[in-house]
């Protein structure tokens, strides 16, 4: 397998960055990681995950869609889309990598979201296999193997080497462009690392969480469940879970008057917010219970109903550690399963 | 010329002669009044008019004791003493460095004044 010594990572990143913009997880002063544009001196984080997920690259929090200008009685619509640049996201975990598949099912089906599509086309995803999963991880629940991450290129590390495997044409081209740096080598040490990781995976506290009681056919069973009241009682109605979530895909479209025109932009919205999907007549989900239910029903019931059983969650565990009151999808699943 | 001179005097005195309301209190209060050809209020008025040459050549310039009684008393804050001082300064400046010319010396000689003082003064006040 193609590999490069970890010690030469700076050379590797420099080579990638010389061709296209490279983003990778880097450590912040506060001990958390975030995606950062690589430049001399930026080191790849060893943390399991970033606070914000990698979905930002394809579906940013705010994005301008169009501009309008008014001159007298005429309104001019300006297409503000610009030619996109190619970029690489390096070090995407298996869970986040899977989230792109989920977002694709929303944005690349008819009608295609061209903003999203353009970004997807220009981005190359280089994943990184996990070696130290955390107690909050439950990606296995959704059939993800963190030791075999997806992406255009999969990458592994055994501590001494990074190993690469292209999964797509785009990935192959990417590896070809780095051929001078990469060497072929044996993977014995890597297999050992994978085996160790697998052992930990089986011992994770959430390893047994299962989707068998969820899916498109459970609508009636869960929609009227009495558990929602108790579960949503402490929910603050903030958007933390949705904004750190790699698969949440809802947005709002708003107009901003700049004083010399109107900018139409979209920004992430959260089903936890009281004005989510507010329409002329009012709001279809008036209580926090309904809003809370919406989020989990969407991930566990509605989404699989419309997408051949695929769930709208990848088990990255971000909401488990970030919810201000520690209410999360795992607690919801367990509570709903209780008879 | 006189405009420029007026401006220079106004600038160096820092006084606004237009504030004068012609009350004459400066002259009423002046201890050197009787010694003067032009009195404090006239200084202010004549500077305002630009009629400065007469002041420059008048001995009144040197009669002002700079006691500032007029400055203190002036109800309008015109500060006549500063105007007088400014005119005096303008006169001194005009003289340049030659404050004493040789032709003046014979007139100064008298029995009481030591000759050495005159020589020293001449050295000191001449370029």
């Amino acid at each position, binding site marked *: 397998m193609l590999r490069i010594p970890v010690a030469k990572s700076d050379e590797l990143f420099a080579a990638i960055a010389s061709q296209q913009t490279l983003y990778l997880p880097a450590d912040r002063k506060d001990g958390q990681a975030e995606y950062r544009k690589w430049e001399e001196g930026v080191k790849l984080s060893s943390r399991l995950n970033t606070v914000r997920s990698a979905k930002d690259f394809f579906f940013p929090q705010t994005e301008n869609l169009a501009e309008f200008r008014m001159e007298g009685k005429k309104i001019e619509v300006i297409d503000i889309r610009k030619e996109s640049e190619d970029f690489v996201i390096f070090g995407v975990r298996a869970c986040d990598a899977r989230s792109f598949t989920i977002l694709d099912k929303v944005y690349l089906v008819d009608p295609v979201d061209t903003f999203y599509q353009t970004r997807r086309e220009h981005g190359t995803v280089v994943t990184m296999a996990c070696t130290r999963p955390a107690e909050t991880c439950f990606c296995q629940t959704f059939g993800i193997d963190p030791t075999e991450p997806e992406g255009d290129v999969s990458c592994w590390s055994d501590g001494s080497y990074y190993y690469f495997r292209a999964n797509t044409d785009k990935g192959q081209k990417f590896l070809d462009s780095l051929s001078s740096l990469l060497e072929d080598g044996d993977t014995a040490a890597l297999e050992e690392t994978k085996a160790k990781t697998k052992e930990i995976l089986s011992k994770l506290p959430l390893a047994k969480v299962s989707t068998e009681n969820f899916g498109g056919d459970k609508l009636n069973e869960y929609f009227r469940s009495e558990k929602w009241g108790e579960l949503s009682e402490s929910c603050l109605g903030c958007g933390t879970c949705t904004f750190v979530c790699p698969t949440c895909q809802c947005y709002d479209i708003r107009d*901003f008057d*700049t004083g*010399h025109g109107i900018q139409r932009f979209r920004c992430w919205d959260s089903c936890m917010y009281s004005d989510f999907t507010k329409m002329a007549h009012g709001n279809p989900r008036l209580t926090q219970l309904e809003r809370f239910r919406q989020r989990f029903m969407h991930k566990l019931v509605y989404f699989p109903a419309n997408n051949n059983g695929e769930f709208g969650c990848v088990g990255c565990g971000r909401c488990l550690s970030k919810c201000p009151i520690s209410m999360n999808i795992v607690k919801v699943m367990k509570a709903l399963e209780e008879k | 010329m006189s405009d420029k001179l007026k401006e220079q005097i106004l600038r160096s005195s820092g006084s606004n002669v237009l504030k004068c309301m012609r009350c004459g209190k400066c002259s009423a209060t002046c201890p050197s009044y009787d010694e003067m050809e032009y009195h404090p209020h006239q200084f202010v008025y004549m500077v305002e008019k630009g009629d400065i040459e007469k002041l420059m050549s008048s001995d009144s310039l040197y009669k002002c004791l700079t006691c500032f009684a007029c400055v203190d008393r002036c109800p309008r804050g015109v500060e006549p003493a500063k105007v007088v001082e400014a005119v005096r300064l303008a006169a001194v400046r005009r003289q340049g460095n030659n404050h004493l010319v040789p032709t003046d010396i014979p007139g100064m000689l008298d029995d009481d004044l030591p000759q050495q003082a005159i020589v020293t003064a001449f050295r000191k006040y001449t370029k």
Partner: protein
Amino acid sequence: MQVNENTNFEPVIVAFCCNWCSYAGADLSGTNRLNYPTNVKIIRVPCSCRVNPMFILRAFQRGADGVILCGCHPGDCHYTSGNYFTRRRITLLYSMLDFLGIERDRTRLEWVSAAEGAKFAATMQEFTDAVRKLGPNRRLEDLRCRKQ
């Protein structure tokens, strides 16, 4: 402090003036033909205490380079106590803006009575000069609103 080198820079200055004192003071400086820069545009409010910090931030967002708030002298408020509240609110707001690193000279509160036309004009001149020296507002601007 950065000094603006672009001498052509004309700052946008918003002045909130209370109807009873400062707006009348501004009128008086007009009646007395006391000149101050055209950069200053006055918004009339019933009392300085009507000025919400929101308005001040809004002005900066929309392209103001300086915001000055004028009211009756403490004790002279037409509504008795309005300007006392203003004083507390605005002191805290300005202190907070300073805390966030926004240049101090972009904000000001001045008490101008209906009789102080000259003070009004002088204050506006002074404030405009100070803001001009600071250059365009960059730290608290909304890039979307920047004039193209």
